């Protein structure tokens, strides 16, 4: 998948596969990334607004398949659990 090439990695503690779909301009997305970093959780992220049209379409298909709306940030954990929006409590639970 071309999207995989756009993943940016942030090193930390392995709590499973954590992928953050974000917008580079969004403060809630920024807070999400900062919280994960402060919790020292290993994660990958994609800034969706910086993707090409083809990549964006690919993401849309992926989200449709997962029944997830294009609202950001979206955190996908181990390809199954989804956290939409900056939900501090749920993000903190990831480190436990």
């Amino acid at each position, binding site marked *: 998948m071309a999207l995989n090439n756009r993943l940016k990695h942030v090193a930390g503690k392995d709590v499973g596969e954590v992928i953050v779909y974000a917008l580079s*301009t*969004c403060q809630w997305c920024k807070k999400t990334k900062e919280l994960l970093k402060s919790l020292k959780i290993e994660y990958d992220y994609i800034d969706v607004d910086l993707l090409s049209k083809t990549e964006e379409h690919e993401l849309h298909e992926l989200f449709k398949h997962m029944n997830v*709306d294009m609202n950001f940030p979206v955190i996908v954990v181990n390809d199954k659990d989804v956290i939409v929006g900056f939900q501090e409590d749920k993000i903190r639970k990831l480190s436990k």
Partner: protein
Amino acid sequence: MKKDKEAEKLYKQLETVAKYKNCYLNPDKEFVMGIAQGLLVNQKKYGYMSCPCRLASGDGKRDLDIICPCAYMLPDVKDFGMCYCALYVSKDVIGGRIKVHSIPERRPNSKKKLS
């Protein structure tokens, strides 16, 4: 440095909008300055200040409802105490009765870029 100056100028404009719309700017200035930077990025990219917390289509007509202040701002401030970005807030947030948080999206999916 130029970016900061632009954002500071926009901050003052946002304050005026808040006053005109009978609401307030989020008291967390750093957070608001981040939103202002996002609005400026979108202004340069799309030619209009689309909401930095939403994915714009680049088509001004289609994005009309998400040009800041967006069409959902007033109902969100009324119902949740803040807009989707938490840029504009209610008196209850200023008074500490409501904590700033991420709220659900009110914009219909049909209006989004790819639907």
